[in-house]
């Protein structure tokens, strides 16, 4: 068959692949071990898992190492890997209050019910680049003992509950329990249920969501104003499945997540001015930036009520692989389409010159 004719392109590809592999794997520095990614670059690993929609720290570390630290590349590797796997089971829903907290911040109240836990955070650390090894912590240093926050469970006093008890929250809890929209099996497009919006944002590229939010502050959009955060939580949640024989709940693991509630002041003429509403953000790993943007945009999208393009923007333009893939496809050959465009330029000119 006509095989030999197709060799030139293949050789170019193989050479490129070889260059990447050799220059990466034969770098004079030590190869980075997977536990160095998960242990020392945990926020990067968390972001890859969040944007992949797959909780798998070791695989995320492998993807980052293979992709030379390119986040989008790592997400692509992980999601493409997931495509080859069937689904064995669906976990039993777990209540967000079952979280084992390692961090909880409640900006809306000085003394909320339950703990305020600053936890592992650089929020109030001076951003000064450490250029020496002098500050590296030594295991014997007693001032840095780890606290036992992981064992802390919140009381049920999440801020939306507190506000509801004070009759300060509009009630739009639904009484039915619809199946969540599965964005990995059905493409989400407007009008979509809230679960489609939330899962799209949970998997979105972090920077895309932050930008969607910031467009409202200094850009052309005005869907939202500055909200008050009710909850910013980071902690561990269990994964439980139903035992195939007994039907009982079995714990098969856990994952970490960031959860945010954003309290919105309702100021629209048609809105209930005596109460607040709340937006929700939730994503894999420790990624407060993303969860806060998500909670803000969730309530903004609800208040917009499909009047504008916000829902479409959130559902269809925030996925990192979609946007980056399409952007980069511009590198592919386009000489057939370009030839056709040139031909039309000549045709328009010919008409203008009266030669037709």
């Amino acid at each position, binding site marked *: 068959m006509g095989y030999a004719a197709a060799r030139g392109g293949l050789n170019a590809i193989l050479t490129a692949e070889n260059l990447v592999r050799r220059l990466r794997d034969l770098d004079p520095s030590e190869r980075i071990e997977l536990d160095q990614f998960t242990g020392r670059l945990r926020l990067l690993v968390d972001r890859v898992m969040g944007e992949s929609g797959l909780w798998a720290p070791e695989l995320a570390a492998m993807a980052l190492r293979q992709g030379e630290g390119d986040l989008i590349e790592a997400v692509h590797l992980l999601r493409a890997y997931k*495509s080859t796997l069937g689904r064995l089971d669906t976990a039993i829903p777990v209540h967000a209050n079952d979280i084992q907290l390692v961090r909880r911040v409640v900006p809306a109240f000085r003394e909320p019910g339950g703990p305020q836990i600053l936890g592992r955070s650089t929020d109030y650390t001076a951003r000064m680049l450490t250029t020496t090894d002098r500050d590296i912590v030594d295991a014997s240093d007693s001032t840095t003992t780890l606290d036992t926050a992981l064992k802390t469970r919140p009381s049920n006093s999440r801020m939306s509950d507190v506000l509801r008890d004070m009759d300060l929250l509009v009630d739009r809890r639904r009484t039915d329990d619809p199946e969540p929209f599965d964005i990995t099996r059905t493409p989400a497009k407007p009008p979509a249920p809230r679960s489609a919006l939330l899962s799209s944002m949970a998997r979105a590229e972090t920077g895309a969501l932050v930008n969607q939010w910031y467009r409202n502050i200094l850009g052309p959009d005005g869907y939202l104003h500055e909200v008050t955060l009710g909850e910013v939580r980071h902690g561990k949640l269990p994964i439980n499945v139903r035992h195939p024989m007994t039907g009982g709940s079995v714990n098969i693991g856990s994952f970490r997540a960031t959860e945010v509630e954003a309290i919105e002041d309702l100021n629209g003429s048609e809105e209930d001015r005596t109460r607040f509403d709340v937006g929700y953000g939730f994503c894999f790993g420790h990624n407060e930036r993303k969860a806060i943007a998500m909670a803000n945009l969730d309530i903004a999208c609800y208040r917009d009520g499909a009047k504008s*393009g916000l829902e479409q923007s959130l559902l269809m333009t925030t996925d990192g692989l979609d946007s980056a893939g399409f952007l980069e496809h511009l590198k592919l050959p386009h000489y057939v389409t370009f030839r056709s465009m040139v031909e039309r330029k000549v045709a328009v000119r010919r008409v203008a010159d009266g030669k037709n």
Partner: protein
Amino acid sequence: MGRTEMTLEATVNSSPTTIAELVGHRTTETFALLDEESKREIRRALLQAVCIPGYQVPFGSREMPVARGWGSGGLQVTLACVGADDAVKVIDQGDDEGVNAVNLRRLVTMSTGIDETTEVDEATLIQSRHRIPEDDMNENHILILQVPVPEPLRGIERDIRELARMHAEADYSRMWVSLYEDKVRNGVITQSTGYPCLVASRYIVATTPIPRWDIPRLHQSKFLTLFGAGREKRVYAIPPYTDVEPLTFEDVPFEVESADGATCRLCGSSDSFLVEMPGKQESWSCSDTAWCRRQRNT
């Protein structure tokens, strides 16, 4: 359904004792990259697409080893259709040797073990970006076109809900107005590739972008054409022997690309889609490289 069968089969054949083993066994059985459940789902969407020519069917586009925008939709369609006896031809801009064509072809052949070919008459599946081969194709061929933007009306309307309404009601008046305004302003219709066509007198489709040169090939074609848009998660189809009419006016004939008497510097043809090397004499050559080579050899 298929999932349970596969799991049981894996259990019986090799008796895995852990979940990790069970999962491992499943992945090694993957023919054509995707799990069977995914391939069935894509085939169901394709069947719907064939039944409603030109209608954009949503499907659960998977993440592929190629990036979105790089043929991931066409690849999923090919992998959902491929069987062990198929032979695949893959072209990009008409060229079997283009790097993206090579990459997609090796993914198909590596994951299936099927034959590859550059010859249309040896191929059963032809995946292409931006071209239809110059050769005649028949009922034995499935042409799979990679689609970057499946929505033909996006140039005149951005809102997804409004677009759905326009297609549902076949309300294409604004499309006609835009073509009319184009003609009035510019003297010609300036749409270059991806020329909008009415399929089976019902749906307007985006023709991927193939050049206008290729559009007449779609009308009453003997072959089935499947369109895969991975990023936008849609498939659509033009079944064999279906009317495909480029949108134009009674007194404005549809024009394909012309190159003012230019001929291919390699085969001498003036009856193929030619591409140009800028700033050179005798700079034209056929975009379809396999066809060009055969013209020289016969």
